[in-house]
């Protein structure tokens, strides 16, 4: 076992970034404003080679968050037992500082669709999500954090608001929450509600980590704005403002910049981390 947690028992209330291999030398040389790293679990499930070797070196120096993107916690069917075993193997080996997954589904009837797909918020889906989280937490032997999705549409059948749904899932399972502030902004714009009200309703006391990322802008059939969570651009000003609002209510939290597509040179990513650092300084002051 590698055991990151014994060295770094918790994420600092400071900026981190989603790790991209092209930034390895920069991070090992001078990480700038970045104090911790997040990796996508599925990229480190190979048998060996460069990905695991780099992760080993990074984990000696930085708190590491393992972020699953493929378990399909919101799936109608049972969790993929093989994938659960792979996650357990990775978590056992690394003992990361934190572990998180998504309120979404991605696998159905033997196909993995490589996207975070939405689910309706009903009593049935709540029970199913809670059962899957129980199973996951039992298997990996630790608490996980559940992340709110970006929504592009709504389900007519939903009977729960998203914050209430997440609060209830956390109450039933004991899981923590990962609050993606960009996702809140994207969903609120797309579904025409006030993002600040969402944050006001959100169980912020359960939030162990905040995500920020960039999004694209489009329109729907009626010309209404349709924002798309792309992780391919800088975080926009209204999302930074929503972060400020969130931090003013929650107090300081670990903040992660996600930039997964059209990944920039290190200085541009570090500049986003610097901006997160300033937002945290403000709330501390």
């Amino acid at each position, binding site marked *: 076992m590698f055991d990151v947690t014994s060295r770094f028992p918790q994420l600092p209330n400071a900026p981190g970034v989603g790790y991209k291999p092209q930034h390895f030398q920069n991070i090992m040389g001078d990480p700038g404003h970045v104090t911790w790293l997040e990796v996508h679990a*599925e*990229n480190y*499930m*190979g*048998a*060996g*080679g*460069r*990905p*695991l*070797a780099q992760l080993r070196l990074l984990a000696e120096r930085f708190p590491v968050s393992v972020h699953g*993107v*493929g*378990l*399909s916690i919101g*799936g*109608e*069917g049972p969790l*993929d037992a*093989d*994938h659960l075993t*792979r996650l357990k193997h990775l978590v056992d080996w690394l003992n990361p500082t934190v572990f998180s997954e998504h309120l979404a*589904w*991605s*696998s*159905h*009837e*033997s*196909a*993995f*669709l*490589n*996207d975070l*797909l939405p689910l*309706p918020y009903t009593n049935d889906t709540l029970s199913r999500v809670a059962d899957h989280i129980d199973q996951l937490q039992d298997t990996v032997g630790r608490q996980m954090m559940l992340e709110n999705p970006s929504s*592009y*549409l*709504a*389900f*007519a*059948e939903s009977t729960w608001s998203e914050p209430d749904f997440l609060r209830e899932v956390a109450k039933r399972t004991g899981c923590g929450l990962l609050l993606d502030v960009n996702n809140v902004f994207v969903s609120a714009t*797309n*579904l*025409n*509600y006030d993002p600040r009200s969402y944050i006001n309703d959100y169980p912020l006391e359960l939030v162990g980590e905040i995500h920020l990322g960039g999004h694209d802008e*489009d329109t*729907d*059939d*009626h010309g*209404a704005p*349709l924002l*798309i969570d792309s992780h391919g651009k800088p975080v926009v000003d209204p999302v930074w403002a929503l972060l400020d609002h969130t931090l003013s209510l929650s107090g300081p939290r670990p903040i992660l910049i996600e930039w997964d597509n059209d990944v920039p040179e290190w200085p541009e990513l570090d500049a986003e981390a610097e901006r997160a650092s300033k937002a945290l300084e403000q709330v501390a002051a």
Partner: protein
Amino acid sequence: MSVTQTDFRTAILDSDLNVPDGLKDAQGRPAGRRFDVYRNNVAVSLTEALQAGFPVVFKLLGTQNFKAIAGVFLRRNPPSNPMMMHYGAEFPDFLRGFEPLSHLGYLGDVADLELALRRSYHAADCETAGGDVLARIPAAQLETLRIGIAPSVEVLSSPWPIHDIWAFNQVKGAPKPRSEAQDVLVTRHEFDPEPHLLPPGGARFVAALMTGTTLGKAASETTVQVPEFDLSTVLTLLLTGNAITTATI
């Protein structure tokens, strides 16, 4: 109206189908092109995964053709699990069987080589035996020697010049492909897999070693099939490529 994940999945993979009922915008109107965000995310992310995994096939086909062909493939063969690092294992067979590409007979075999390079990249690390391992074995015992091969080693045999085609598209200054059948050995020095041209019969020989056949038997069986088999060149490639993990008498 309840939308099942079967409805959702089916409509994502077939853009001709209607968006499932029960998916709405904030005003309660049908979701319409909002659903296309998911269709697009799935198709684009899987196409990009194939492009990243098969860069030479991508170059040979060109952007437009590759995207069109990937679009057909990903709908027939979506990933079967979240291990995207291994996505596209069926792509070589798909290319061989795809009628519009029948004039590019080598394409599937080039894809096999790219898949082998990717498997090698993610293969388990291991200690290798060192460049002088064979020199330490008494000559009389070489016949019965069993050679352990590293998990990152791959061998391929093709009626097409797959090594040359790969190199011509990936290595600056590489010569134009010869017109010949080629065997290829993939070795991984630390983290970066590299394809090497094997002499004729080389793939058969290394594959025999991988299944535990003794050095003597593997060499003699290969020579029966390929009389000009050049054993010393293959052994040199294995030694310099850090491909040998053990040598057991």
